[in-house]
């Protein structure tokens, strides 16, 4: 991105901080209800420097990464199957939609009960939530391949495998990346919800600690900001990968 492109982003951020500060001052809110932005920034920096955040951050990142990889990977495979087989779509889609209709918030405690309070339950929750948008995007993307291009491929004696790798996947990539953009932010939500349902480490655990036993509200906000930044960073990561693989068409 050019420097000019960053300017509006910075201005919007400054405006947000200003409104926040104004709310604190005008409303006369005490720091345990809404700490002013500068307090949160200071606490954010100190919490990172003194190592308060780090172990929780690492735990959450591992959960998000593994959950995203597993969920998106399964989403790609199942999405391809949905696009290619009408029978598979008919058999599988009721379950997929039903699974999607049950709030993950309700499933999370059950999954923690089954898979324990460790890494596994969080990865399962993350992948569940990532799976659906990626699977649907893959299905739509593969179906969007122009039949004329497939005919071209056949006239050039492309094998089924070559049709997949040189026509279907490249044509479906923009849609798949669209699904992954949604999926990667949902992965963060999944990890946080999973930790909320039972864990001993992770950013959601830190939020619970900060508002409970530590009663450190600025730390709670600092952790919230950290979670938001993780989401933004991962989203940008997908956007960068998309530019790299899809480019300008």
């Amino acid at each position, binding site marked *: 991105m050019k420097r000019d492109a960053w300017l509006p982003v910075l201005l919007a951020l400054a405006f947000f901080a200003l409104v926040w500060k104004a709310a604190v001052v005008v409303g006369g809110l005490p720091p345990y209800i809404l700490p002013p932005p500068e307090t949160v920034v200071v606490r954010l920096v100190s919490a990172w420097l003194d190592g308060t955040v780090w172990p929780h951050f690492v735990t959450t990142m591992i959960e998000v990464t593994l959950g995203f990889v597993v969920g998106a990977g399964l989403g790609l495979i199942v999405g391809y199957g949905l696009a290619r087989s009408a029978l598979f779509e008919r058999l599988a889609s009721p379950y997929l939609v039903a699974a999607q209709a049950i709030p993950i918030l309700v499933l999370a405690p059950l999954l923690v009960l089954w898979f324990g309070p460790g890494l596994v339950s969080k990865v399962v929750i993350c992948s569940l939530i990532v799976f659906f948008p990626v699977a649907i995007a893959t299905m739509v993307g593969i179906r969007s391949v122009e039949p*004329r291009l497939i005919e071209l491929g056949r006239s050039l004696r492309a094998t089924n495998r*070559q049709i997949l790798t040189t*026509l279907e996947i*490249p044509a479906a990539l923009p849609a798949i990346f669209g699904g992954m953009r949604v999926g990667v932010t949902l992965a963060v939500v999944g990890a946080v919800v999973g930790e909320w349902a039972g864990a001993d480490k992770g950013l959601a655990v830190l939020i619970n600690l900060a508002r409970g036993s530590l009663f450190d509200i600025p730390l709670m906000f600092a952790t919230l900001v950290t979670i938001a930044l993780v989401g933004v960073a991962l989203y940008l990561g997908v956007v960068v990968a998309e530019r790299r693989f899809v480019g300008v068409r």
Partner: protein
Amino acid sequence: MTAATTPALAQAASTGVITLHDVAFAFPTRTGAPLPVLDGIDLEIPGGGIVALIGPNGCGKSTLLRVVAGLLDPGSGKALLDGEPIVGPDPRIGLVFQEPRLLPWRTAADNITYPLELAGWPSERRTERLAVLTELVGLDPSIAGHRPAELSGGTRQRVALARALALEPEVLLLDEPFSALDALTRERFDLELLRLWERSATTIVMVTHSIPEAIMVADRVVVLSARPGRVVADIAVGLPRPRTIDDLDDAAVSRTAREVRAHLGDADAAESVAADLDRLAS
């Protein structure tokens, strides 16, 4: 017509011979009764010959081309290339569609070499062939790195033509290849196609809607009837080769055009008779 002015015709003829014998084709429909599109097509195209297929809309010209290309299996009859049945897409046959059909995510160069990539050519050989092909179809080498969206319609169709020639086919099938181009560009492309043919000696079958284009390019103009398509006329074009744009003013052209038009008129008449019969039957 002397041998000196038609080098390609003199050399060719041994390969790229297309024989269609009693070819019929019907599309399956939802209601169950197949829709006959081609019926009893008999056609012999010599190696290195140029044949234009012309006929009313929906008469099965493109379907016939797809049968020759091995993309459609004829319901009955025989389609042969050099005496052997055409059982599927064949590297000896190159196909240019009505629209360029380029892969939008690939550069012009990668689109041209796509058939070579599918055929498993190593990248050095692909690069060599690319240089030959761009020269052959008159492409500006500087566009090699551009994507189709950045190219003009004419340039895109040149890329498609280069792609069809990539594997040095004996037969080039063209499905209204220049119909999306403006009249002037189209004329120029027709002449360039002839120059290319003089160098490569391929058999060319071109589907077209334009009588002047058919006469300009072809040795023979084959007129198909309305659906189901049958050959209603096979008219020889008595123009010498190599042809130039001035040949279009030749008296032979207007004579041939009149003949083609008369047969197309018959085809239309046949169509209305068929429609009447349909009405009576229902």
